[in-house]
């Protein structure tokens, strides 16, 4: 279990690490790492491997919005059913049940403000059980998934030191 956690932490930091390399880093047999990764993939602990992209660099139009959603929980299924309905839209990037003044935090990605507004007005707000939405558009991204977008990768160290 300890090994699996370490494997996951390494892969979460760099999805390109090969089992061969992980085996060296953890000082475990390569076959053991391969088996562990296969198992973690099969049981959906590992959900995928992705690349983090700073889309601004390539000028891709992208609008992010946080929608606060208030809903009426349903008997027996609580927030589950409505959350599943909302979550199935591909426009929804992330979805969380929150404590506090609203119930669901819905992160939407679209090409334009109009597209996002259209989605909220025609898909999200009219859903049965949704009683209120508040839309916040993201103006600038400073940090995403633990990575500061403006940080350079400059090494300020002397090229050689004792």
């Amino acid at each position, binding site marked *: 279990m300890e090994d699996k956690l370490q494997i996951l932490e390494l892969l979460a930091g760099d999805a390109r690490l090969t089992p061969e390399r992980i085996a060296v880093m953890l*000082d475990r047999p390569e076959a053991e790492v391969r088996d562990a990764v296969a198992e973690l993939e099969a049981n959906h602990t590992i959900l995928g491997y992705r690349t983090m992209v700073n889309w601004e660099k390539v000028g891709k139009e992208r609008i992010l919005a946080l929608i606060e959603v208030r809903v009426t929980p349903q008997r027996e299924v609580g927030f589950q059913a409505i959350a599943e309905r909302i979550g199935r839209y591909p426009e929804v990037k992330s979805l969380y049940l929150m404590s506090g003044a609203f119930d669901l935090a819905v992160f939407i990605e679209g090409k334009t403000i109009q597209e996002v507004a259209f989605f909220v007005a025609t898909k999200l707000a009219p859903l049965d059980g949704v009683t209120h939405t508040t839309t916040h558009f993201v103006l600038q991204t400073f940090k995403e998934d633990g990575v500061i977008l403006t940080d350079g990768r400059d090494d300020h160290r002397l*090229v*050689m030191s*004792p």
Partner: protein
Amino acid sequence: MRNRSWVGRLNPTVAAVKPSGIRRFFDLASEMKGVISLGVGEPDFVTPWHIREAAIYALEKGYTMYTANSGLPALRQELAGYLAESFGVAYNPGTEILVTVGVSEAFDLAMRAVVAPGDEVLIPEPSYVSYEPCTLLAGGIPVMIKTAKEQGFRLSAEQVEKAVTPRTKALILCYPNNPTGAVMPRRELEAVAEVAAARDLIVIADEIYAQLTYEGQHTCFASLPGMRDRTILLQGFSKAFAMTGWRVGYAAGHGDFIGAMTKIHQYTMLCASISAQMAALEALKNGRDEMRRMVGQYNYRRRLVINALKEIGLPCFNPGGAFYVFPDISGTGLSSEEFTERLLMEEKVAVVPGNAFGDSGEGHIRISYAASVENLTEAFKRMGRFVRRYRLEQAANMV
């Protein structure tokens, strides 16, 4: 008159100190583009943000003055707790701990406090570059004890015993070791401790890499039975907390040693920078999780590097600490300086030649794995190509 040389008027002791063995390579590497440097003796991590933020906050609050000579009382208090908890050795924060401008200053103070003209100081070699010059500057006579790769660059009690003369005053220990990465198991340190006690040696234990121990547990020399009072323990924040540029270290030991060192420190340095001390306090209080994370990263890289050396075919013993490996490159037919210079010129990878750490480092290079996995991977690809080329060349020459 304008071209008159003043060298003859300099202090001859200073004039006789040799310039650093890495200077030439530093100059070469600094002028080149696209160099991957594995020649850096400091972490590649930037100081964790909460530590930097604490220093900024201290500046905002107006902490811009001197501190007590021996350091902020709160920092010494925290250090005493830390040393007791992590290394099992208790010090009185009022009289037995001195905060210094890096371990470098602490080492210089220890030498000046302890060494009288003509005293011999035992220095295991390969050795960090400062020990010999600082001994000379203090008026002492450095006596190098050569450690060998066959022994994993560990020091044996017999070697110490053999090197002791009636004039021997002090023994320097640096484990985990820079440049070799060697660590000393507890029982071997105990044997050295017996000699130190029998020969009444003062031990200066530079344990700056203590937290960077990957195999087994670090044994603090001062924690061995009977050693606390004859050991000047030196540690700092540079390596474990990625704080090299802040320059904060400390010495802990018997009040007579710390008192003498404080006397020199108060007249020559006055105190370490208050901002840096504030940052160090934050590091000790809230930085240990982050420290452990960084140590974990070093350990991953250590294994990658050892594996890469194995694949290249450069023999290397398994370094248990610090962030250095010290492979044997003699099989290429090149001296350590030739290897370093050609690797730099031909493949743009910078390492440090082993002879920069004394004659017994000849035939080796020091590789620092305080570098990103990406850079390590690329550097070892280049190094592999380089070594294969020289092997072939050597084989051709033999025919």
